[in-house]
């Protein structure tokens, strides 16, 4: 079953990469930008019988590796 894990920096945590992108866009003429945040999407094909088992697996993988829970949030959804 295909699942998608979204990983994003927690609200309020500084995102130097987003900041650099915002800055570069600004210098390319895209003015008036607010905050830019860079997030991560991980697509996985997991062996699971149903959606809830697939999501549980995705969450376990997020906690173990894909997200740093101290500074990042994650969410998991079934894609197909």
């Amino acid at each position, binding site marked *: 079953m295909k699942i998608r894990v979204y990983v994003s920096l*927690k609200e*309020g*945590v*500084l*995102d*130097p990469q987003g*900041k*650099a992108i915002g*800055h570069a866009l600004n210098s390319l003429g895209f003015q008036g930008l607010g*905050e830019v945040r860079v997030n991560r999407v991980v697509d996985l094909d997991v062996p699971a019988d149903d959606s809830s088992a697939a999501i549980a697996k995705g969450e376990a993988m997020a906690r173990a590796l894909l997200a*740093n829970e*101290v*500074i990042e949030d994650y969410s998991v959804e079934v894609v197909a």
Partner: protein
Amino acid sequence: MTVTIDAKLAQSFGLTGGEYDKLLTIMGRTPSFAELGIFSVMWSEHCSYKSSRVHLKTLPTKAPWVIHGPGENAGVVDIGEGLAAIFKMESHNHPSFIEPYQGAATGVGGILRDVFTMGARPVANLNALRFGDAKHSGTRRVVDGVVRGIGGYGNCVGVPTVGGEVNFHKAYDGNPLVNAMTVGIARKDKIFLSAAAGIGNPVVYVGSKTGRDGIHGATMSSAEFDDKAASKRPTVQVGDPFIEKLLIEACLELMATDAIVAIQDMGAAGLTSSAVEMAGKGGVGIELNLDAVPQREPNMTAYEMMLSESQERMLMVLKPERTEEARRIFEKWELDFAIVGKLTDSGHITVIHNGVTEANIPLAPLADEAPIYNRPMVHAEPPRHISPPADPVGIEHALLTLIGCPDLASRSWIWNQYDGSVGGNTARRPGAADAAIVRVDGTRLGLALTTDCTPRYCQADPKAGGAQAVAEAWRNITATGAKPLAVTDNLNFGNPERPEIMGQFADAIKGMGDACRALDFPVVSGNVSLYNETRSPTGLAQAILPTPAIGALGVIADASKSIGLAMPDNHDLVLVGEIRGELGQSLWLREICHKEEGAPPRIDLVAERHNGDFVRAQIEAGHVAACHDIADGGLMITIAEMVMASGVGCELLAPPHGLPIHAFWYGEDQACYVIATKNAKAMLSAAEKAHVPARKLGHSKGTSLKMADGMSVSASRLREINEAFFPKFMGEGA
């Protein structure tokens, strides 16, 4: 806000009942939420040094070469040729446990700012690290994150990481120590201080925007971890080294003009501590208008802005007519620049937000009446010196075990991740000499830099351990041929409210003070980190080993004449100093006999100075080709490290009679050096003339370390074992 402000809320902010009463007396009314926040951080252990100050005051801080001692952002010493070295070490222990990468990275960023805020260009970083037991499951995560964090920040910002130290011990399982040191160079007549002056002068904020980063980090860093640490996690500070680099360049450019009256970085307790300290030191008032503070997030409260620990920010007081010039410089470097207030004659800090006065606190009592505690102490009886136990394994087995153990294994896995030579001035990198040598631009001078502490000695006998840490730093600088000048200390201890911990603290300071005085090695800056404890599931508080880490700086007139530890071929090896065979608390005892007992090695400060001055004079006279002090692991390890450094072997003479052989080779006797010299005879007669104990140990030749009894281990085998630990521990090559 509907929060009731009372003693209970104050307690949750870290203020005791007595401290809250004092606050009420000063204010004459119930404080606002922001005011309570300001008091709680200014009176936290981190900012007020309330438990440590009575003891810190006993440390020697003066010498003819000291320009500024403790009290400024960093210590300043005269290194000659019109230049000053500015340096300090600071802890980032708790953040490094919660999020190792960012905790260590922002630790490096913070200490860099302490140094360039005084007008110095940072030229070197060092790091004293203590991790949990290598067998503990969580240790690898912390080592990995901390090392990458230090490298990530230090490498990006373009300051070489040239040295440091690493220990492993189970006492650090839940509470690693990350002590970062930065050294900078400035012109001696161009040092910038933090005391604000000039009523009406603008207060200017520069650097990054303010977010809700690490709010209450300063109070958190003074609260022991418990099982709830997970839920207490504040928003972790994330460092941005590229902004720091811009900030360094912008500040140094502005400092080349005479626009700055005072400047201070925003470290722990951010805007609060920088504003309060600058105005307080200058005896003026300060008014801040928070509407002008550059903000990263919407709807921040006054409390949040005053306590935010967002990184890469500085506060300055400028001459009013120079403000626009300063603005141009910071805008050129693409940094935020905002006039956020002015100096007043009110003697108060006044904070205005959205037209409301959120805080109005008299500065003098905030500083002068800050709590100071002379906490109760219990002094543990130091253990007795032990006589050497029988050797269960023999010399060769012990050698191969020790050089592969976590505390002695090659650190190259770590330092290879650091850029140790960016800037092109690193004359001697880690592992090449007892102290790193960094050339000073435009001169022949070299700075000799080291960090040292042997926590297991401090645990056994804090006073002897404190003295040993200072003596070893002095010895390491001496072994390169440099003259030791001054010390920065980073005192990491447990909960000071426990009398036995406070006793350790006071005793360690006594030992440090004795050594600093005997060696003319004053303390010019430092940092105290208390409450380094974890609570076990049974509720028992477990403190770290007492760890008074010493960072030290020396200077050598010609960096190219500094001495390393690589042993050249066809030289005599001479031991300077006396070996009594001190096996108490030695690594041999721990790794071979699995015991941590006995008294640490005796510290004889007169011999330390005498032997060291002799060694330095011999180096200056050109008689020394390599030099290495005796430390962890004893004489045999010292020699093995000299062999590994060059690949040249040696033939050792039989050890003297009257001492068990293993005690001679593995005793961790102090004030001792191994020197490689062309002619042992000349060295021995010079030593005799100077009344310094010395004996010939052997001769360097071949590619193996050989003993008189026939033992022979090749340099390549030594290296192989020495380098195996870290890659294996970190799961590489598996």
